[in-house]
């Protein structure tokens, strides 16, 4: 029980820690989590990450959930409740922004190996930094071929994300948040960047180009549906989820090819 006092100050925010959809992800879980590191911001074992009535998005918790904890003792291992205590105790900048390079790399690897089984819990924190980078890279490779179409890329991705969000909320037992959908679709845009970089070097309008385009669309939609299926525990619906993803990536491919 010696260490119990240290934990007690952080475990009291019972209503906050259930939902881990925050970008900053500063939640300690109620149960002792073997995966949490000393700064412990990224919580893998969050089975309640998608609770809520079917069709309803879990409410976004306020960012300032645990600043109001009355902490009598100064605990150096709990940076998030001590914003004002000085420069040395601030968390690192990247952590505060919620950008975790290790996670970004892991998710990228999951997309790049379409046959590897995906872990459902990697999508628990919604990370839009990676997808933003991929969208910009896609626009940049299009720019190299002379097509200035950033507007189309953003517009189509916004509409596509909205459509997938509505569809997945209707089709799954648990709901999803918009950030999660946007994050998954953004990560799976990575093979499309490969396609458009091919388009810089060769023209994609021959038979070879059609075959490459079709296989890359298949790759993107297969990984996106694989991640959605494992994150939302939908059974027997992988092809049904893959088809709208294929339509969306097909529109992106149309932009790169024509």
């Amino acid at each position, binding site marked *: 029980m010696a260490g119990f006092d240290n934990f007690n100050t952080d475990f009291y925010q019972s209503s906050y820690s259930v939902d881990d959809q925050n970008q900053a992800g500063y939640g300690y879980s109620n149960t002792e989590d073997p995966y949490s590191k000393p700064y412990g911001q990224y919580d893998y074992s969050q089975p309640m990450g998608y609770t809520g009535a*079917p*069709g*309803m*998005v879990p*409410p*976004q918790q*306020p*960012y*300032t959930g645990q*600043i*109001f904890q009355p*902490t009598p003792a*100064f605990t150096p291992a709990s940076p998030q409740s*001590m*914003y*004002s*205590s*000085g*420069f*040395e105790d601030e968390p690192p900048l990247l952590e505060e922004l919620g950008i975790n390079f290790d996670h970004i790399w892991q998710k990228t690897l999951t997309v790049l190996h379409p046959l590897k089984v995906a872990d459902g819990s990697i999508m628990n924190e919604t990370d839009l930094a990676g997808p933003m980078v991929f969208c910009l890279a896609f626009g940049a490779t299009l720019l190299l071929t002379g097509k200035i179409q950033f507007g*189309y890329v953003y517009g189509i991705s916004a509409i596509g994300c909205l*459509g997938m969000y509505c*569809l997945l909320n*209707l*089709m799954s037992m648990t709901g999803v948040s918009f950030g999660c959908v946007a994050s998954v679709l953004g990560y799976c845009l990575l093979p499309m960047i490969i396609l458009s970089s091919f388009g810089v070097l060769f023209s994609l309008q021959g038979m070879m180009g059609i075959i490459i385009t079709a296989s890359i669309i298949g790759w993107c939609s297969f990984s996106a549906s694989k991640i959605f299926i494992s994150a939302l525990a939908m*059974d*027997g*619906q*992988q*092809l*049904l989820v893959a*088809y*709208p993803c294929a*339509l969306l990536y*097909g*529109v992106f491919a149309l932009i790169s090819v*024509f």
Partner: protein
Amino acid sequence: MRGPSGDPSDPSPLFDDTSSEVNNHGHGDVGKGPDAYPGQAFLSDPMSNLAMAYGSSLASHGKEMMDKNLDRFIPISKLKYYFAVDTVYVGKKLGLLVFPYMHENWEVSYQQDTPVAPRFDINAPDLYIPMMGFITYVLVAGLALGTQNRFSPEILGIQASSALVWLIIEVLTVLLSLYLVTVNTDLTTIDLVAFSGYKYVGMIVGVVAGLLFGRTGYYLSLLWCCVSIFVFTIRTLRLKILSEAAAEGRLVRGAKNQLRMYLTMAIAAAQPVFMYWLTFHLVR
């Protein structure tokens, strides 16, 4: 030792010696923020904390209100029933839409008064196929126009909105005629949308065949799909609109049943008309 550098008592020091100030603030501050770091002051100021808490509560309250109101107009839970499908169901249903001649039992099975989910009963209507069919139809139309060099992004919007408007007109007409004929049926509006949306599958098949094989391919496949949709619609709606006796195939004379039969045939005949109307300008 005195030097050119930092003497706190010097009225104009060459640089500020802040080492002593840092030690004073360091570990003593637990509550209010020090003034040296304005970024900290923002977060620790009680007024701004209060404002943030109020703002977030306002946002969640607004979201709740929006969800509640949305639920009144679009019944989300009822819609979820129509999306409870799986791959096997979709595959079989698509096969049924193109070849409905071998299927024998067209009744929707019930479970204690509520219809069974589409996942478990192939005769139940769903909204996944119509929705995907609609979106695919718009994209294929864009593709077809692109091959004729008539493509521009506005065309996609025009095609989508005109198809949507025709769908709405058709559903409203069917609803009106069901009301006029005073049929006691358990067809809901969403069911009618679903049944009207099944024709997009045939349209897509026709347009794709037209792209691959030219006008002959288009006409042949469209003819096949029109006949299939006609048979499919009659067999499905017959059970819903006609009385039980007539639905079983026995000949029941009577003005009411005849009227219902004509209504079913009219609805079924409207499908091929729409299919041709919405696709003939796409294939040259």
